[in-house]
């Protein structure tokens, strides 16, 4: 292998998902010439959303998974995400193995846009409750930033991305720059009112804050209520790299997008203590190519960003760039889920729903907030949930076959309502990922080995996630309420975080308050890897804000001649 082909940019961004897309947009808009590297293929906005306009009867297996799809996706099939509509949006698992020392569901999107194409779009701000929790409780290390550092950047990204939601005035879930909210249906409104009354407003069911447009915004069309976001939206009505940040970056004329470019390592100059560029493997030509830049943004998704650091500067630090702290690859977090409750709602038989809303309702965290500490665990959880009328697939126990069954299933079924918890996972030092010393992928590159599990704190929380959901539904008059716990594999929340955390001290963290690697300040890691704790809300909006903030800082530092 010889690296002969060298190109030079102001900045290189590794990864084109939510964080990488934002880095590319911000850096190019500030005048930098940027190379955006993506390991997978391109997916062009609208043109490549091949199933987005198909009717249900045009999908051959009507959405059911085939054996072939299950065999091709032995990890993905473990949960709902495997879908006949978008298998091409998920990683080729055979080509990209990893090792599960303990069960770990790693649901990846290796293509332009990454998981911004398939994300669930719930978008919530963090509060100081979250930024201060580690320090107050003596868990892990303190965040080096507070809400005040991020608030203007939340506003910045919300205004561009387009987040619809309701202002609630809740300290634990700060309001943002919202487009008009989506609406609850008649049952959800009733349940929300009853919960609020019953719990004296210490618990609230609100409409989800979602990155779906409720009015035209930034050249994009508003949501058409098809609820097919995961197929790609031909209206560009939800935030993705393709619909939002990539076109903005392209408009500057400063962006070069390079698909099929697997970042192998960051090129480290030990004398200058700086990274000089990125070595990539071209997945089409199988050639190694070097690109040079003054700064590098690593946004390869939490675990792969850590992988890239582990593979870099190993001549100086055997465990990779950023490993001098002993924290690289440690403190891996996610949100644990699949615990909650559901039941049947009486009444409203003469009411139905028109349209398919692409978001759910949300119950912001209420535990360990209102003087109810002492439940045996730290932190808390939120719920996503909604009410709907059952459809033709419902079981009607008393009916067998024939005209009566057909007639009954042609009518809307009873209303049901469910709540599913998303719980915070603490940053445990020994929840870690490493390079597997033996296994290699098809490129001869080492693969990650996952060794992560939830502990007593999370298991105790899961009981409340079920009991509290049941209690709220029962208080709201829901009948036949059943608790559920489908179990949880690490990673199933698809919110991997923490593998290169931010901190105040290079001895105990990989990144500083501006997401710079302590050992190479011109490298910025701004995706989920940087998170010092996990909170319980969906994290993508925070990655956007952190990325925009870091990009602003990076450009200022470049201008000051500090990088």
């Amino acid at each position, binding site marked *: 292998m010889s690296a002969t082909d060298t190109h030079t940019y102001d900045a290189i961004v590794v990864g084109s998902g939510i964080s990488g897309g934002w880095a590319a947009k911000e850096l190019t808009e500030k005048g930098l010439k940027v190379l955006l590297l993506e390991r997978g293929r391109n997916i062009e906005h609208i043109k490549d959303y091949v199933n987005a306009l198909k009717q249900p009867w045009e999908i051959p297996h009507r959405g059911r998974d085939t054996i072939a799809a299950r065999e091709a996706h032995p990890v993905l099939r473990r949960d709902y995400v495997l879908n006949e509509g978008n298998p091409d949006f998920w990683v080729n698992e055979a080509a990209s193995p990893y090792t599960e020392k303990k069960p770990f569901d790693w649901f990846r999107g290796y293509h332009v846009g990454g998981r911004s194409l398939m994300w669930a779009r719930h978008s919530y701000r963090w509060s100081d409750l979250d930024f201060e929790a580690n320090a107050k409780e003596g868990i892990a290390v303190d965040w080096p930033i507070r809400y005040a550092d991020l608030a203007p950047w939340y506003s910045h990204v919300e205004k561009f991305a387009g987040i619809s939601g309701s202002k609630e005035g809740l300290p634990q879930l700060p309001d943002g720059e919202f487009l008009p909210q989506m609406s609850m*249906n008649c049952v959800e409104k009733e349940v929300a009112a009853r919960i609020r009354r019953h719990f004296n407003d210490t618990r609230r069911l609100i409409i989800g804050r979602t990155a779906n447009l409720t009015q035209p915004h930034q050249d994009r069309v508003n949501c058409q*209520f098809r609820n097919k976001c995961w197929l790609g939206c031909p209206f560009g009505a939800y935030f993705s790299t393709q619909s939002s940040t990539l076109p903005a970056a392209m408009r500057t004329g400063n962006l070069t997008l390079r698909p099929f470019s697997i970042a192998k390592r960051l090129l480290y100059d030990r004398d200058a203590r700086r990274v000089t560029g990125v070595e990539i493997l071209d997945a089409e030509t199988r050639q190694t190519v070097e690109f040079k830049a003054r700064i590098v943004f690593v946004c390869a998704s939490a675990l792969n960003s850590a992988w890239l650091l582990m593979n870099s500067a190993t001549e100086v630090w055997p465990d990779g760039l950023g490993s001098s702290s002993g924290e690289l690859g440690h403190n891996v977090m996610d949100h644990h889920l699949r615990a909650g409750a559901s039941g049947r709602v009486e009444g409203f038989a003469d009411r139905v729903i028109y*349209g398919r809303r692409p978001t759910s309702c949300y119950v912001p965290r209420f535990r360990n907030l209102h003087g109810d500490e002492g439940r045996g665990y730290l932190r808390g959880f939120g719920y996503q949930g909604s009410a709907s009328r059952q459809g033709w697939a419902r079981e009607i126990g008393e009916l067998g076959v024939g005209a009566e069954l*057909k007639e009954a299933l042609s009518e809307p079924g009873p209303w049901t309502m469910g709540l599913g918890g998303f719980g915070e996972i603490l940053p445990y030092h020994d929840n870690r990922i490493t390079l597997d010393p033996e296994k290699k992928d098809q490129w001869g590159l080492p693969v990650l080995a996952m060794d992560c599990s939830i502990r007593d704190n999370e298991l105790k929380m899961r009981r409340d996630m079920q009991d509290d959901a049941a209690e709220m539904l029962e208080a709201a008059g829901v009948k036949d309420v059943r608790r559920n716990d489908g179990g*949880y594999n690490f990673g199933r929340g698809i919110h991997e975080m923490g593998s290169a955390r931010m901190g105040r001290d290079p001895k105990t963290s990989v990144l500083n308050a501006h997401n710079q690697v302590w050992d190479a300040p011109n490298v910025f890691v701004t995706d989920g890897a940087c998170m010092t704790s996990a909170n319980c809300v969906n994290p993508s909006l925070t990655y956007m804000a952190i990325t925009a903030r870091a990009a602003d800082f990076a450009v200022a530092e470049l201008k000051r001649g500090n990088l």
Partner: protein
Amino acid sequence: MNLSRREAIVRLAVFLGASVVGPRLLADRIGRSDAGAAGYSDADLALLDEIGETIIPATPGAPGAKAVGIGAFIVMMVADCYYPAEQAAFKAGLGQLAADFAARHGGSFSDSPAAARTAFLNELDREQKAHTAALRRRSRQARGEAGTEEKDDPARPVPHYFRMMKDLTLLGYFTSEFASTQLLGWVEVPGHYDGNVPYVKKTLAPAPA
């Protein structure tokens, strides 16, 4: 083969004032060769059509499962989406159903009056429901509190063959173009959301004689 079914589809399409593309595509794509490759004969397909039609019969204004090509759909789904043990159980079940019916009624399922077919399948349905409930109980016990559910576990227990038949009939029928648009009010691009709409029961025009 299946002339009668195709004829029904075309007649249905004409009656609906719709293009024949949807149902025709289905019937063409899931052709004889696919069914043959999966080890199903013309007679098997015809029997599955009749089973489907007994589960979801034609009613005034609304065609039954046969008109959406349910036999071919079921065979395709079994071949593509079920594990080998389930495929074997399904195939054996189809034969058993025909044999049991003949033993009971002395004639073939397809040629017997609707009342006898319905009564027979209702009995099978009770059997599959009991079987399914037992499997669910066992799986809950086996999983315990610690286990993690997998959506499509290859080691999942084999369902009762009639559960598969009924499930696939309902799936094929209620996701068909006719049922989606005429029975279930499917709108591809709703344009807005209203979570509090008065429900108006639809009325279907009676089928032409």
